[in-house]
């Protein structure tokens, strides 16, 4: 009762943040107001979580996992929303974009508590509709909006209807989930979205995907789970391979995140207990570290004023060493750097899933290695190389504090310190 009340308070705070950002007189004020509202939301959910957290560490909680994981994901979604807002470059995001980000995060926090399975499929449409409003103004955004509404949107409605009426629900839910997680060849919407949307909004979409995936186990019927886990393992490998071939940094980022989400999906639908817990940890890694490096890519683009390619080294290290170091650390956490959250996640997934599905788990291992390669390629090509004109604006105190908090949380989660 009490945690659910706090959750309601949290989601209300997030929606108030959306409203405040639209009503604010300028972009900087809008960002401050929305960040404060989301921070209040995170605090409310965090307090609710801590008060009802069992004694044991989070890393040893299989019996309470559904209860806990939903709340942890809601907490992490709201927390990452605060990070996404705080790292928003005021010059490149309108007040409406900030409001859309608040709506996406609020939807993400609400999805794990949907009362019925069909609602899990339909609720993300709220976030997608809000994102569509941002897309309409961007060049090339209308095409991306159409793909967004057709692939995860329309398929979500169909899956919701099928679940509601109880007909072919496995096929419909599986198809929707594959589209939502951008499994090739249904990934077109995702890569276009990454290219067109401001990256902070794209991070909001990632947070929403992670949250929906955590709830998707209730949506997909039992017979469809095993084939779906196989398909998701192939999707993880496919996206990891596509990431390696990308020449555009945004598309490469999107492919890495899609691959990690597919790994999380594979784990969630596995039979092993450790794999299911590992899936939640993969989602936490995505929500903290992967969105973190997406946001830092956005910060880098805001400084350079252009989209970044991976064809030649850009030499940004000389101008922004702190940004470079933060990008590297978050990227490596996301790729499974030892002693971090990403490592715990991948270790649990592999141990838990291999016994029941050796071949797909091997594909997941390979996809993890490929993602790490792309991550390192991105770091080396974005930050190393001959420096251009020196620019003074490294991470500002606000950005540094937020990024450092993100890095600390990525390590702290790995050692079961938060929450617990």
């Amino acid at each position, binding site marked *: 009762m009490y945690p659910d009340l706090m959750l309601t308070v949290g989601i209300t705070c997030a929606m108030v943040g959306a409203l405040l950002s639209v009503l604010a007189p300028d972009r900087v004020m809008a960002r401050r107001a929305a960040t404060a509202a989301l921070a209040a939301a995170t605090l409310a959910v965090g307090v609710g979580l801590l008060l009802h957290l069992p004694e044991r560490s989070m890393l040893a909680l299989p019996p309470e996992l559904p209860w806990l994981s939903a709340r942890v994901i809601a907490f992490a979604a709201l927390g990452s929303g605060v990070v996404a807002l705080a790292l928003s470059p005021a010059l490149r995001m309108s007040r409406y974009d900030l409001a859309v980000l608040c709506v996406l995060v609020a939807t993400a926090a609400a999805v794990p508590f949907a009362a019925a399975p069909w609602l899990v499929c339909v609720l993300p449409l709220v976030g997608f509709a809000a994102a569509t409003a941002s897309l309409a103004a961007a060049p090339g955004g209308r095409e991306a909006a159409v793909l967004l509404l057709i692939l995860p949107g329309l398929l979500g409605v169909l899956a919701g209807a099928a679940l509601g009426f109880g007909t072919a629900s496995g096929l419909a839910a599986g198809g929707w989930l594959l589209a939502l997680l951008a499994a090739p060849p249904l990934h077109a919407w995702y890569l276009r979205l990454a290219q067109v949307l401001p990256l902070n909004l794209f991070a909001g979409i990632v947070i929403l995907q992670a949250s929906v995936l955590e709830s998707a186990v209730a949506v997909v019927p039992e017979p469809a789970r095993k084939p779906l886990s196989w398909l998701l393992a192939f999707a993880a490998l496919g996206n990891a391979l*596509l990431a*390696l071939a990308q020449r555009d940094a945004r598309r490469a980022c999107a492919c890495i995140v899609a691959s990690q989400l597919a790994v999380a999906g594979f784990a969630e639908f596995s039979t092993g*207990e450790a794999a299911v817990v590992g899936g939640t940890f993969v989602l936490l890694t995505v929500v903290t570290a992967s969105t973190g490096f997406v946001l830092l890519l956005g910060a880098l683009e805001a400084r350079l004023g252009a989209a970044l390619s991976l064809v030649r080294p850009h030499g940004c290290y000389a101008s922004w060493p702190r940004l470079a170091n933060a990008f590297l650390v978050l990227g490596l956490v996301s790729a499974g750097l030892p002693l971090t959250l990403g490592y715990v996640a991948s270790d649990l997934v592999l141990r838990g899933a291999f016994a029941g599905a050796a071949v797909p788990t091997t594909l997941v*291992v390979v996809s993890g290695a490929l993602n790490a390669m792309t991550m390192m390629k991105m770091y080396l090509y974005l930050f190393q190389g001959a420096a251009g004109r020196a620019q003074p604006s490294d991470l500002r105190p606000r950005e540094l504090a937020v990024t450092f908090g993100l890095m600390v949380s990525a390590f702290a989660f790995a050692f079961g310190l938060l929450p617990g």
Partner: protein
Amino acid sequence: MLPELLRATSAHVVLLVPALPVLAFAAVLLPRLFGRATSEAYTYGVVATGVLGASLFMGLLAAVLLAGLGAPSVVGAGRWFAVGHDAFEVRFGLDALGLAYGGFSLLMVALVAAFSRRYLHREQGFHRFYALLMLFAAGLALVSLAGSLDMLLIGWELVGISSTLLIAFFNQRPGPVRNALRAFVTYRACDVGLVIAIVCLHVNFGDADFVRPGNAAWLGMPQRAAGALSLLIGFSLMFAAMGKSAQVPFSGWLPRAMEGPTPSSAIFYGALSVHLGPFLLLRCHEQVHASPLIGGALIGVGLATALHGALVGRVQTDIKSMLAYGSVTQVGLIMAEIGLGLHLVALLHIIGHAGYRTLQILRAPSLLHDRHHLEQMLGHHVSHAIDLDSGSNRWLTLPRVYRHALERGGLDALLTDRVIGVLLDALRGLDAAEQRWSGRLARAVLAALPRGRRAGRNEEKAHVS
């Protein structure tokens, strides 16, 4: 009484060995992350404290073992995480192999740290170098003292990451960036083997811990699997070792890795990192000898690498590449020794080669300097030409052999053009096709919408007018 006390405290002492370099790494990096400029003296002091502290504790553990106060054993330092039956136990192994390799590693790190203080004085990346050196030291300490393959993997990965970042140390040039990426790709691709071996062991036997079989001199992975599983684990471990130790056909990254600063080249590719493959195989020698197929393959790969390195090294035109291929040759021989079951010989070969090669690589820049001085004094150019009439150089007069040596066996071209290039081209083709079909679909939907049709007509009118 004393052995009991030592056993009780050894878990805490052994934990300090990798922890001190990690703390030094954080102490060097964190102030700079928050914009506080630190002096070279501060960084060097922190690093010296970390390395000497770790060496002290390592020495203490070695002394206990040598004095016969404790037998080779695995000590538990707690549990990192656990879900159901799957737990990550923090275990350290105390035996002659780990302490010899770990002690030697810390000694080399200390020497290179002392050497680099002047060599990299006022270099832009002075602090970065030392931070990465500490990460490397922590990784090596973990690999050496690991009590299970899980712990070894953590150190293995840390060594790989620090190695990659040090290859890209001179980040103003594009060459180091490409070469660092190449090294990292090789590392990660081959690490898949180690991960698969660990997962197979966990799933089938519940753990991947090292034990002391009978009265063996050092700890190792017991042979528990049979048949196809045994082959899978053995070959996976061998694959991981091949990548880390630049064995054929993955040897192309090693000479390229010499783009990093000379001290890091010396310690990584002359001394320690390149020998981690043989170290892994020494730890898991029972898996290697589980089947004659694995042992035979290891001997074959080792000898092929040694031959390849010996031939290619002779036609290199710069001293660091020549030394890199020298390392490839020696590590190939060490692999063959392990394949033949000569484990003690392999360990002595590792330590001997590491010390000698480090000295050679550290001496290389000043050797060139000395040579220039010599030429100035003599007043004429000293010939660098290969004497094709002497000894084994006669092989190079054979056109095919010479071409093989000159083209580095064609291995780089094979991997780059025929494998990775083809794969990337195919993926880019798929990516382009995806962009085409999704664009057409989106445009078709937009055109079908009433507003879309109106917008289309307006665009058409605007175009006509």
